[in-house]
């Protein structure tokens, strides 16, 4: 305890004391002493002495919740209990805060502040501000605990910093009203129909009369009933909203009960930016084709081969290579692409035979990243042959020649394989197809047809050769051959021109001279020479020749297969509605997985595996070529392709953008898988056209935060842009508030945590317990000025009494009393 003087200068007034003493009359000492004491007291009062002491008094603040969620009866009971509580507390050590509208005079002259807000967090902070500096405090909250906001973190921190305890005396709440709780929706893209779920909390007895109406900014409305409850009193109707090209769309949700709106919520939907995809291809239209197949969820950029300039693959979440080759994709770019894949970019490798052969990337660095082997070792391949056998069945062939011719024909047919085609033209003055061009499926039938040939008629070879040529012209087999079997007794014609012409069309003509006709050898040899074929002479059955019409090709291990092949999903085993026409077989590498298979074979059509952070998928056919011709009309094809590319992109950069409003500030949190990106944060109000920049900074590896100051009742659109993609979020007005009657139990639980964290208690009114707390020592002052003045007044009155008291009044006249 100590005494201090606020105006010590007034001490100078003590110089009046000698004046008073000097101007006394008579020998009386009492009067001047009294007067001096009087002046001394007044001087002391003017100096304003103050006693300072330390006190442990506690300041009490009572908060009475009179928000609409608390019924009038409960509110009045709370007021009574508060007054009862305050009656035990010094008025100087107490304040009252009332939430909602109330009469401050209800509280017995205790300083009362009425806050029009219904925010419990704001009420507690205001109550905290009422606790004087250095003093401990107890805040007693009479409330149902249903807060309209959730900003308890700073409240608890402030209570702990000030050593203030929060006690909660729980009151009953008014009956719940139906409210819209949350409105979640999955990610969607511009042009897609968003799916919105509206969770409504309502008593089952009310639900039957409740309905929801959604209204867009353009006036479009959708109405629906609540349907069946998904949980206790929770209804979750799902709305399929119309697609929009805009990123942001605003809807108003009205909860209607018998034509009366009981709750309104503004919902702002934010679409996600399309997944950026790069397509490398030789065909310029492939990019547009892919874009139209994939739809709005993807943004396809086409880069035609060859790629010569450096490329930043990190801008794309997936890269599609169609029929890439070493010349189209130099090694440097391949290495850059590999780096991007190892960092998360996905790769879809597709193409025809070229993509999976030595002409592709077989010896390149990229080949190691593929889930299938692009093997450069060559193996033999026997390509298909189309063989037209022209048999001279003219009269001159009677006897041994025709038999020899038939035998040669049979030998030739036996050399053929099922993928080959054969036809037999006989000429005997006219020509006809004994066996039309057809696949070699039934060799017995062919041999029977050969056996039925008979030598008769004239010999006109020239038209037969023409006929055979026309029959072979439409064949697509690699090797096309005409085998002419005759005894050379044919008409004179300009065979040279014809045969050379045919040979220029990649159709070779070989000749077989049957019979013993030495003069015909030169002629037949010439024919073979002109036709770029071979000449054989079969004089008798002992001089049969080995006919060889095909040359084995050396091809890489992956073989291009043509035909119609059924495709199955490896997981579900469900077949695709349409077959794939052609594909290339490529062996699967160990640990790679097959996603699509060719039916009745082990060949994968779609294979994938992980490469670093990224994923690589190989599709062993062209996405838009002959192989997938039949899929072009398949509605699911685009979806499947989108699913493949989507799964590739998923690993590229899984970033999340969250925004949260806190009063007049929006906190932005952006987490990515890398911290060397430089995101840019922008925002705007929904009625604005231009974006505002806001700072965003790196806080932890891959974690960026930013703050935006904007009014609480504004609809705000936020975007964070990286080199890869743009992320969007939107906040409805007052999005950090909950309606008064939305009894969010989560919020009540948080209030309980705050009470416990501050050292307080939660109780019902009838079982209220006061937490015992120790007060902080704070400086208390006691002014002595009034006491000094009171003493001065007493001295003054005493002096007057002393002066006027009859017994002491001395006569001026010394004399005798008569």
């Amino acid at each position, binding site marked *: 305890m100590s005494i201090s003087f606020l105006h010590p200068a007034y001490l100078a007034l003590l110089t009046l004391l000698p004046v008073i003493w000097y101007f006394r009359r008579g020998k009386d000492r009492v009067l001047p002493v009294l007067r001096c004491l009087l002046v001394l007291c007044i001087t002391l009062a003017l100096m304003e002495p103050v006693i300072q002491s330390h006190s442990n008094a506690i300041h009490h603040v009572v908060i009475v919740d009179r928000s609409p969620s608390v019924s009038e009866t409960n509110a009045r009971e709370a007021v009574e209990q508060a007054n009862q509580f305050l009656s035990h507390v010094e008025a100087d050590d107490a304040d009252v805060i009332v939430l909602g509208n109330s009469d401050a005079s209800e509280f017995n002259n205790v300083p009362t502040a009425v806050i029009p807000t219904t925010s419990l967090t704001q009420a507690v902070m205001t109550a905290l501000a009422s606790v004087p500096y250095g003093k401990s405090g107890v805040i007693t909250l009479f409330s149902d605990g249903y807060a309209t906001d959730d900003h308890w973190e700073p409240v608890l921190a402030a209570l702990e910093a000030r050593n203030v305890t929060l006690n909660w005396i729980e009151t009953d709440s008014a009956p719940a009203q139906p409210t819209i709780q949350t409105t979640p929706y999955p*990610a969607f893209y511009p042009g897609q129909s968003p799916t919105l779920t509206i969770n409504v909390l309502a008593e089952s007895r009310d639900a039957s009369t409740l309905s929801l109406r959604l209204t867009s900014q353009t006036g479009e409305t959708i109405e629906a009933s609540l349907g069946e409850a998904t949980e206790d009193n929770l209804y979750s109707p799902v709305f399929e909203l119309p697609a929009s090209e805009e990123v942001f769309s605003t809807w108003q949700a009205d909860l209607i009960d018998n034509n009366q709106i009981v709750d309104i919520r503004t919902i702002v939907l934010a679409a996600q930016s399309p997944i950026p995809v790069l397509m490398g291809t030789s065909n310029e239209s492939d990019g547009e084709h892919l874009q139209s197949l994939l739809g709005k969820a993807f943004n396809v950029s086409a880069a035609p081969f060859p790629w010569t300039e450096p490329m930043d693959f990190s801008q794309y979440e997936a890269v599609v290579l169609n029929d890439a080759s070493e010349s189209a994709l130099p090694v440097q770019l391949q290495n850059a692409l590999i780096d991007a894949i190892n960092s998360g970019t996905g790769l879809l490798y597709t193409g025809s035979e070229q993509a999976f052969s030595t002409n592709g990337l077989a010896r390149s660095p990229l080949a190691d990243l593929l889930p299938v082997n692009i093997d450069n070792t060559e193996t033999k391949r026997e390509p298909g042959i189309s063989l037209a056998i022209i048999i001279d069945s003219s009269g001159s062939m009677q006897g041994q020649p025709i038999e020899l011719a038939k035998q040669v024909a049979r030998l030739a047919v036996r050399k053929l394989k099922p993928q080959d085609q054969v036809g037999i033209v006989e000429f005997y003055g006219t020509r006809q197809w004994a066996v039309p061009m057809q696949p070699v499926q039934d060799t017995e039938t062919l041999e029977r047809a050969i056996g039925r040939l008979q030598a008769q008629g004239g010999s006109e070879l020239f038209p037969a050769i023409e006929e055979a040529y026309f029959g072979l012209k439409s064949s697509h087999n690699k090797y096309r051959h005409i085998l002419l079997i005759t005894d050379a007794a044919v008409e004179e014609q300009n065979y040279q021109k014809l045969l050379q012409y045919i040979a220029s069309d990649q159709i070779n003509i070989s000749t077989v001279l049957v019979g013993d006709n030495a003069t015909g050898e030169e002629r037949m040899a010439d024919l073979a020479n002109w036709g770029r074929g071979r000449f054989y002479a079969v004089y008798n059955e002992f001089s049969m020749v080995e006919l060889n019409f095909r040359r084995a090709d050396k091809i890489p291990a992956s073989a291009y297969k043509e035909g119609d092949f059924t495709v199955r999903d490896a997981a579900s085993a469900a077949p695709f509605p349409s077959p794939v026409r052609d594909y290339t077989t490529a062996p699967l590498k160990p640990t790679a997985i097959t996603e699509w298979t060719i039916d009745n074979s082990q060949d994968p059509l779609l294979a994938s595996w992980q490469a670093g952070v990224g994923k690589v998928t190989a599709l062993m056919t062209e996405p838009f070529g002959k192989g997938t011709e039949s899929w072009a009309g398949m509605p699911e094809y685009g979806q499947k392709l989108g699913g493949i590319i989507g799964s590739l992109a998923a690993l590229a950069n899984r970033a999340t953008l969250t925004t949260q409003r806190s009063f007049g500030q929006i906190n932005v949190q952006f987490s990515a898988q890398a911290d060397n990106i430089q995101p840019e944060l922008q925002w705007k109000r929904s009625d604005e056209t231009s974006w505002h920049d806001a700072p965003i900074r790196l806080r932890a*590896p891959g974690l960026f*935060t930013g703050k935006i100051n904007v009014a609480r009742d504004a609809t705000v659109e936020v975007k964070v842009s990286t080199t890869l993609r743009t992320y969007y979020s939107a906040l409805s007005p007052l999005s950090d508030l909950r309606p008064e009657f939305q009894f969010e139990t989560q919020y009540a639980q948080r209030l309980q945590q705050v009470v416990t964290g501050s050292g307080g208690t939660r109780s019902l009114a009838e079982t209220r317990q006061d937490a015992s707390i120790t007060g902080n020592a704070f400086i208390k002052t006691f002014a002595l000025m009034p006491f000094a003045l009171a003493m001065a007044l007493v001295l003054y009155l005493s002096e007057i009494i002393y002066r006027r008291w009859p017994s002491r009044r001395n006569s001026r006249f010394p004399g005798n009393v008569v």
Partner: protein
Amino acid sequence: MSFVNFPFWLVVTGAFSLIALLYALQHLKAQPVVLRVASVQLWQEALQHASANKFWQRFRHWLGFLLAVLIALLLWLAISGIRFTDSTKPLHVFYLDTSVAMQAGDNMTDAKAELVARLPSSSSANRELWIGDAVPAKILSADSSNAVLTASLSTIQASSHLPAFSEWLERVPTLYAGQPVVVHYFGSALGNITAPDGIALQNDFISAAISANAGITAIGQQRFMTDNEQVSRVTFTLLSSVEQQFQPDDITVLLNDSPVDAARIIALQDNQFAISGIPLTDQPQRLTVSLNEADSFSVDSFLADSFLPDNSATLMLPAKSQIFVALQDGLPDWVTRFVDANPQLTVDPERASVSICINRDDTCPASGATLYADDSSNAVTFYTPISEEQSSLQKIWQAYDWSDPAYNMPSMQVLNAETKSVSMPLSYLGQLVEKQQADPLLLLSMAINWLTDLPVAPAYLAVGEAAPVLPGDALTQSNAINPFPLTISQFKEGDAVAMASLQSPVISRQVASARDTSGSVEADTGSDVPWLTIIILTALGLLIVEWLMIQRGRWA
């Protein structure tokens, strides 16, 4: 007019009482006593009293009475604490900022001196003083004695908290319910702060800028699992008000007081740095990053940094997260492979806190919470006694896009149960794993962590901000109130300790921002006429006059 010490009725009653008393004393006359005196003396007295014939002397006794009444009433009013207030005059509220920026230079000393000089001159009837602490509080209310001021101010120092002025200013209309208020601000430079309607803001003192400042404005961590190890990667950001580009040699990093080799500090862009691969140990580790002091003899010594709170930042790296699990026989291979490969998980049935079972029967280990297979429905079910966890679990699903059919992940549901457990379609998830999809592994990891309720070390902890909650953390932190440090301090939550650092680029830059420090227009702080002092002095003067008159024999 009002009275501080007594109610009005008491003042009036007292006044009348005094008048009555003095009136009664006025009539306190002596009984006549007849004395026989010498005639000479009688004539002398007559001559002395000759002036009694003057007009005013007929009333001298009444004048004395009135003077006595006046003196008594003046003293009584002074005792009552009379005060003349003009209700239309605004209340002057003084706000002394004690935020961290006031630690720069002599800001705090200068602000206090300015405040002490201005405050006592203002009338105590309409002035208040607030201390802008981490939580602003009133230190002097209206009518409270200025005696508190000197004693309290001497103990007040700048603290390591962020300014709370703008939030307090928004609350002023509520605190002073309709009363006109002038706020006098003494503190660090503000940004663009607009006072609410009806409140006038006056910058009576703005702290001077220091010449230059460098500081750490961000520091955070992320835990990774690599092979058989749990490691942490730390990033931090430096700021220089003179746009200096820092090098790793400008920084000292201590890990549990042992220096970290500067070669491990990797410079990113824009004064951002990273340290990767810090192995986590069984105990938390303290990582402190600090700026090396400028050489006092160097050319740049004049740019010496006189704002130190942002020169160092401390981060607590968490202890290795260890979860002991018990496995039932017959689990899918991918689950056992995952447990073997995950450095966070250790198979130890004796100490297991989580059991992973294929069937919930007697062979399922009964230790701790259970995660079991349920392929009857394509859903992951979280059983919990805390229904409020549903929203945080839904947020997880949304954050990872697991609701998107493209990911083929099962749906999620939350059901009430007495104890925590999780059921998953392990076979179906295994198929996704075979397709090399990582989401099932992430889900399994998160579910195990959710069952064990392990505390999660925050990525960073900054003064004046709630600790961030990442999507994965939300699963374990559920509905908890996040730490919200108000000062540079240590935060203890259970067994976990976290360190809060300043990390404020606004403050670090503002302390060195040039500003116009010319004094603002001095507004009338309401120094009213000191009526109380005048009354007392008047009473004193009248007492002296009365005394003189009494001693001269004029009055009795």
